[in-house]
């Protein structure tokens, strides 16, 4: 059997086209499939005021036809090649991706290049997609319990400025106010070749794929990346606590958050927090599951992660460590927060137990390797790491870097999770159950 060391990073080729498009190729012939991802350096944090939800709405518009493609053609060509597709909008980036049998690679590159040259922005498509997005928000937020908890509910408590605090799904008023001119401006500003990364992983020959990339993307007009805004905010000056009633929710819940070091510029200081989240909440042997769920029974579940969308290596500053829990019927939030503080303090005082760090990091390695086992996740991860850090290869280095985090670093991270630096949002159940 192989050891971790033998899982040598696949060859990674990186180059930049004259128009500024950065390209990452990661060939792996083990299965006859390819993953293709194009990531643009714009996300929820770049939306203008009065246009909440616009980055996501625009993502939908990128599927509505382009220079050489009618509406519906993109979907039909991808699926008619045996592939799947999607796009998603994040705080700091928007991705578009396909996974296909490898004989369709050139077709996927053609389709991505075509919409990079320009989507067909029409009034009819815009109105149709505003309706679709409203149904998406009804499904995921308005018509279910805990909708948008905590990813839409925590930022306004945690942050003070519009880019960091606003609702990334958008208000219906803002969505309905969106115009075709807004969309054209957004494309012109952010969807430049110089603001994008193309990443391909899977079953292909690197030289051949590079030629295909040049053929299809080479004449996408060169437009520079816009200056990237700084979204930095100072740490909280004191604890913040907010609550709201969820009319459908049967159980009380809360999410608590602490600011963490800059994920990019201070990666070495940031990484221990990623490990700490797992020490506290990964599985039945973790500290908070043991204490809150299995011993005290004061929570019915608890999860912890870094970044509000749970993607610690796909986010820029400012971001946070989040601990969230659902409580049994009638449960009170304050005592549970006090127990969390006690457990963080205990870890800060006493440090980790023997083997605790090693087993936590071993499990994290499995998660990372498992993600790397699909061509599409590999393509996506390379694309975002290349865009945000200029280092696609960090994906393969992560298990080793996590293994280098020390118990002392984790202890110090735990010591920073004090109530005075905490933002809490509490869900008051309005559903009938409790």
């Amino acid at each position, binding site marked *: 059997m192989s050891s971790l060391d033998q899982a040598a990073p696949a060859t990674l080729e990186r180059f930049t086209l004259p128009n500024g498009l950065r390209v990452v190729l990661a060939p792996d012939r083990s299965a006859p*499939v390819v993953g293709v991802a194009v990531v643009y350096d714009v996300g929820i944090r770049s939306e203008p005021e009065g246009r909440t939800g616009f980055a996501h709405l625009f993502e939908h518009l990128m599927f509505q036809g382009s220079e050489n493609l009618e509406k519906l053609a993109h979907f039909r060509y991808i699926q008619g090649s045996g592939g799947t597709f999607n796009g998603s909008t994040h705080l700091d980036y928007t991705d578009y991706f396909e996974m*296909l049998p*490898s004989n369709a690679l050139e077709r996927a590159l053609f389709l991505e290049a075509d919409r990079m040259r320009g989507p067909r922005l029409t009034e009819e498509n815009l109105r149709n997609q505003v309706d679709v997005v409203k149904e998406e928000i*009804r499904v995921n937020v308005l*018509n279910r*319990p805990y909708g948008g908890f905590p990813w839409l509910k925590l930022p306004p408590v945690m942050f003070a400025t519009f880019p960091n605090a606003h609702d990334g799904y958008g208000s219906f008023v803002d969505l309905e106010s969106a115009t075709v001119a807004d969309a054209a401006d957004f494309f012109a500003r952010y969807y430049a070749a110089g603001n994008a990364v193309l990443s391909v992983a899977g079953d292909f020959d690197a030289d051949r794929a590079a030629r295909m990339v040049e053929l299809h993307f080479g004449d996408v007009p060169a437009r520079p990346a816009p200056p990237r805004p700084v979204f930095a905010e100072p740490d909280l000056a004191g604890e913040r606590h907010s609550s709201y009633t969820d009319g459908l929710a*049967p159980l009380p819940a809360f999410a608590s958050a602490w600011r963490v070091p800059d994920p990019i510029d201070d990666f070495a200081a940031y990484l221990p927090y990623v490990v700490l989240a797992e020490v506290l909440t990964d599985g039945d042997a973790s500290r908070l599951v043991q204490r809150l769920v299995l011993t005290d029974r004061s929570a019915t579940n608890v999860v912890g992660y870094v970044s509000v969308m749970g993607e610690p290596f796909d986010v820029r500053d400012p971001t946070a460590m989040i601990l969230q829990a659902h409580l049994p019927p009638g449960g009170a939030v304050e005592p549970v927060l006090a127990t969390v503080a006690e457990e963080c303090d205990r870890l800060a005082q006493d440090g980790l137990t023997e083997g605790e760090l090693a087993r936590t990091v*071993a499990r994290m390695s499995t998660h990372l390797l498992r993600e790397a086992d699909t061509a599409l996740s590999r393509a996506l991860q390379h694309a975002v790491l290349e865009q945000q850090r200029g280092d696609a290869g960090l994906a393969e280095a992560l298990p080793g870097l996590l293994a280098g985090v020390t118990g002392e670093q984790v202890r110090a991270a735990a010591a920073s999770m004090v109530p005075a630096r905490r933002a809490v949002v509490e869900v008051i159940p309005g559903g009938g159950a409790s």
Partner: protein
Amino acid sequence: MTVLTGPRELPALETNRELVLPSDAERTLDNGLTVIAIERRSVPLVELRLRVPVERRTLDLPFLARAALLSQTVFSGTPDMTTAQIAAALQSVGGALSASLDADRLLVAGNGLATGLPRILGILAEVLTSATYPEGEVTTERARLIDRIQVARSQPTHLARVALLRRMYGDHPYAVQTPEISDLSGVDSADLAALHAARVQPAGATLVIVGDIDRAATLELAEEALGGWTGASADESFPPVPPLLPGPVVLADRPGSVQSSMRLALPAVPRTHPDHAALQLANLVFGGYFSSRWVENIREDKGYTYSPHSVVDHSVAGSALILSAEVATEVTAAALLETWYELGRVATAPPSEDELEQARQYALGSLLLGMSSQAGLAGLAITYAGYGLRLDFLAQHTARLASATREQVAAAGATYLAPARAAIVVLGDAGQVEASLSTLSPVERSSTNGAGAEQSGA
């Protein structure tokens, strides 16, 4: 490099690589456990899936409650290990295992570093042969399970499924798949130990191991670890599912709902039936993927919904075609009308050649994508094993998809997608949608109300 100007031509597809099945090996141990080892050495991990059937003759709600709680407590302790010790031991080899229950089986699923496989199998064996169901842990997990059921009952997708299962299955064991809270309340450690002794047994069970392994050595390892898991299992089997008969639209009230959850069920056939490939293609043309008539109509043209989908859903005792869409309250009847229209079109006229080829390529591609990761292979292998199939079914199915004719797909559309055969359930704000739905079909209020109040009082 060629300079392109003007309208650009879509690149043709290259020749596809032939479907290559991964290397596997299989052994049925003396205790009746079937072990399947599959090599995929892409990353240094292993995936494990253990399937234990839970067939039963009747809709036995107390059994359902015990089985559901067993799935949440089987890793709660052995004579030598506590919950935390089990979890820590698995974690130390990058592993985790968890159990879940559906209508057909108890499933233990997990993964870990390939070097940890002996340790993971050892812990799995210890749990299977000596789980103790400690009373304290049982009490905790029972309360947590009840909490989760409460949360599920506040979710429209769950409530719509509850109403649909009742509509489809009457008093068949499939009719209720979430335990009643009242049935859970009395379940204790002794009940779980008794159920474990009766049903968590190797005869009829299947273990799939996929990953960076040597097949032969893995079979040896599994036999060494699990050969001592012995005992006789209850020999029960499901009755056939009742025929799905059309009838009035069943309307479950959820006052204040801002969307309606629309579900339609149609009778289907199992994977091995000669019509199955053609049915799958007819369903794709209708609504089984994004580039289908139904999705292009009610989402991309009319904006009624976000993610409508239509799937052929297989269970051990029967198969069905299930359509699901969450639609805006004010267009509920309009969405049902368009759904009927699109079903009717697939049922009464053959698809175009282009539509059929597009669906065929999608179906064939999905098979390749599905088996391109360790987790994907493990999921396929354990699912197929539940029906007595092996991964070579992928090759057979590929051949049937490749050769299905337009006439066969049209015939499957007429047989399986005929709107006249549909059972229909709508969960939504009845006060808002009943009158307009009644213009299309007789409507009958559901006896199981979808609203929070009644559900949570249970």
